[in-house]
C-alpha cells in the first residue's frame, strides 16, 4: 500500500487570467489510475464526497460550464507524465525543469503545465511546494530558536530564517541587539508559535530570509490556522484582510497557510511605556481566562469552512470568493458543519459558474 497516494491533475485553461485551477485527487484504488487525463467520471470519484446521482450531474454541469467559459482553449498546455511537449524542434530551445529528452523527443516528467519563457521550456508541477518570491507575505510556524534567529517552517523545501535584527523590538526603540536580547528571544517567539512575516531575500545557499519589521507582522494568537495548497493563493495587492463586520483578521499567506483569528489592533511602536508593558502581561494572563466569544467563533468557523470548500473544489482562494461563499451559506441558513456536506459543495460550484458567466457576458 505504499507508493503514490495522491495523483494530482490540473486542468489549466488560461495562464494569464485569474481563472481557477481545477484539480482533483484520486486515491490509489484498483479502479482509478495514476496521472491519466481526467474525464468527468474520474473527477467525481476523486472528489471524495458522497454525491448522489443528481448532485453528480449538477456538479459535472457546473464544471463543464466553467471550462467552456475560459478564454483560450489552452488545453494543450497541461501535460501528464510521458506526454510529448509540443515544441518547434527547429528553433533552439532550452530544456528546463520537468522535461527530459526521450528518443529525440521532449517529454514531460511531471504532471503540470507547460510554461515558456523566451527560449526556456519547462513544466511547472502542480502539487509542488511553495515557491517563494521576494515581498510575499507568508505565515509560518517556529520550529527552532537558534542563535540570533528563529527558524520557521513555511511549506518550502527548507526552513526559512527570521533574524533577530529583522524584528522590531517590543519596546519599539531602534537599537543594536545585545546579548540580553538574544537570551530573551523566547519571550518574543517560542517554538510552535505562528508568525506572519514577509520574504526579504534569498541567501546564496538557496534558503529564505524573512523580515517582520512592520506592525502588521508578528505573532498570531486567538484563532486557527488552515493549511491548503500554495497554488490556490494568488499574489494580490492585499494579503491582510480585516473583516470589519465580523471583527476578524484574515491573512492569506502565499505559502498556503491561512490564518483566521480575532482582530488585533496593530500596536503603535512609538509608544514606549512602562505601564503599557505591565498591561500587556496581564492581557496575556487574561487570554488564558477568557475564550473567544461565541458569535466571533461562529464567524471564524464559517469562514474556515468556506475556505475548505473552495480548496476541495479547486478554486482560487481570494477574499471576494470567500465572502460570497460565506454569504451564500448564511443566506441559505446552512448550518456551519453542513457547509462541509456534498450539497453545499455543489451549490458553491454552481454559484461560481453563474458568477463567471455573468462577468464574461458583461465583458463582451
Amino acid at each position, binding site marked *: *500500500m*505504499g507508493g503514490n*497516494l495522491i495523483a494530482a491533475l490540473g486542468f489549466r485553461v488560461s495562464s494569464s487570467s485569474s481563472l481557477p485551477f481545477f484539480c482533483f485527487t484520486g*486515491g490509489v*484504488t*484498483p*479502479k482509478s489510475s495514476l496521472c491519466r487525463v481526467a474525464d468527468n467520471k474520474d473527477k467525481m470519484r476523486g472528489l*471524495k*464526497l*458522497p454525491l448522489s446521482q443528481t448532485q453528480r450531474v449538477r456538479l459535472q454541469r457546473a464544471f463543464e460550464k466553467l471550462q467552456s467559459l475560459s478564454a483560450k482553449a489552452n488545453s494543450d498546455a497541461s501535460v501528464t507524465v510521458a506526454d510529448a511537449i509540443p515544441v518547434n524542434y527547429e528553433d533552439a530551445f532550452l530544456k528546463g525543469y520537468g522535461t527530459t529528452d526521450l528518443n529525440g523527443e521532449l517529454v514531460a516528467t511531471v504532471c503540470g503545465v507547460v510554461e515558456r519563457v523566451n527560449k526556456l521550456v519547462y513544466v511547472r508541477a502542480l502539487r509542488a511546494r511553495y515557491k517563494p518570491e521576494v515581498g510575499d507575505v507568508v505565515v509560518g*510556524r517556529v520550529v527552532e530558536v537558534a542563535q540570533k534567529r528563529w527558524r520557521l*517552517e513555511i511549506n518550502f523545501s527548507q526552513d526559512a530564517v527570521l533574524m533577530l535584527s529583522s524584528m522590531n523590538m517590543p519596546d519599539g526603540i531602534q537599537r543594536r541587539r545585545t546579548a540580553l536580547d538574544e537570551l530573551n528571544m523566547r519571550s518574543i517567539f*517560542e*517554538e*510552535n*508559535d*505562528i508568525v506572519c512575516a514577509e520574504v526579504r531575500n534569498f541567501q546564496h545557499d538557496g534558503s529564505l530570509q524573512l523580515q517582520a519589521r512592520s506592525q502588521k507582522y508578528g*505573532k*498570531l*494568537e*486567538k*484563532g*486557527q*490556522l488552515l493549511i491548503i495548497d500554495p497554488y490556490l493563493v494568488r499574489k494580490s495587492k492585499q494579503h491582510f484582510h480585516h473583516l470589519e463586520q465580523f471583527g476578524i483578521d484574515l491573512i492569506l499567506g502565499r505559502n498556503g497557510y491561512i490564518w483566521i*483569528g480575532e482582530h488585533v489592533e496593530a500596536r503603535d511602536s512609538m509608544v514606549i511605556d512602562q505601564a503599557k508593558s505591565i498591561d500587556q502581561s496581564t492581557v496575556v494572563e487574561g*487570554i*488564558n481566562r477568557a*475564550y*473567544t466569544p*461565541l458569535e466571533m*467563533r*461562529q464567524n471564524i*468557523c*464559517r469562514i*474556515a*469552512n468556506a475556505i*475548505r470548500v473552495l480548496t476541495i473544489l479547486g478554486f482560487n482562494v481570494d477574499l471576494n470568493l470567500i465572502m460570497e461563499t460565506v454569504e451564500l451559506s448564511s443566506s441559505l441558513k446552512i*448550518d*456551519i*458543519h453542513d*457547509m*462541509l*456536506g456534498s450539497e453545499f459543495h455543489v451549490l458553491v460550484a454552481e454559484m461560481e459558474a453563474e458568477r463567471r458567466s455573468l462577468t464574461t457576458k458583461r465583458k463582451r
Partner: protein
Amino acid sequence: MVGLSVGEKHFIQGGIAQDLRSDGRKRLTYRPIYVETGVIPQAHGSARVRLGATDVIASVKAELGKPSALQPDKGKIAIYVDCSPTAAPMFEGRGGEELSTELSVALQRCLLGGKSGAGAGIDPTSLVVVEGKVCWDLYIDGLVISSDGNLLDALAAAIKAALSNTGIPKVDVAAETRSDEQPEVNISDEEFLQFDTSGIPVIVTLTKVGRHYIVDATSEEESQMSSAVSISVNRKGHICGLTKRGGVGLDPSIILDMISVAKHVSEQLINKLDSEIAAAEASEEES
C-alpha cells in the same frame, strides 16, 4: 504531528467548551463517514473507511485450519493492525509498532471478547466446519493510510464493513470419515456464505478535554486530551469492550457518564454506518 502554539491550543479548548469545534461540529457530532467496499479483490472481504482525513483499510482473509483443543466448536479470529509510513514519517520501520500493538489489542478486546470467547462481537461458532477437526481461521488486517485522529473508531467501522463484504466459500465435507482422520473438504469456488454482521459492535471514542467530552477528535484535538475512553457498543445497546487511554485518572462516575453518552451516540452511528455500508455495497455491484 506538528506542534500547536499556545494561542491555538487555547482556541481549541475554547471551542470545545463552547460546543463549536474548529470545523463547526458540535461536541457529539461525527465527521462525514465515507465507506468503500471490495477495494482488495484478492481478499475475501475488504473495506476502506474515510473519516475526515483519517483513512483506513481493513481486509478479511479466511483459511481452513484446525480448531484449538480447548475450544473445538469455535473457529479462530485474529486481528492485526499496521500503521503505514504514509500516515506519518515516524511510522517507518519499527516506529509505528507501539501504536499498532495498542490498536490491535484494543480491537481484539472490543470485538473478540474474553479468553473463553464470552462477550464476543463476532460469533466464532459460526466459523466451525467440522467440530474438532476443521474450522475457518479469519485473519482480519487493518492498515492505517492517513491519520487525523480517531483511528480506533475508523478501524472498527472498516472491520464491520469488511465483514459485511466478506464471502466465505461454501465447504462440502466428505461424509464417510473415521473419527481420527482428517475429513476431506471441497471448497467451492462459486457459492459464498455471507456473514451476519448485525451483531458486530462499533467503537465510540470519547476524548476528554477540560471538563467536556468530544466524539471523533481530530489529531489537533487529541493532542489536547487529558484522557480518552473507547467503548464498543452493539445494536442492542450492550457494551462489548472498554479501553482507556491517557495519563490522567478518571473518577468512576465520569466513566459511567461517558458510557451512557457513548450508548446514546452509538445508536446514530450504527444506523449511519449501516446505511453507508449498504450504499457502498450497492455501488460496488453497479461498477
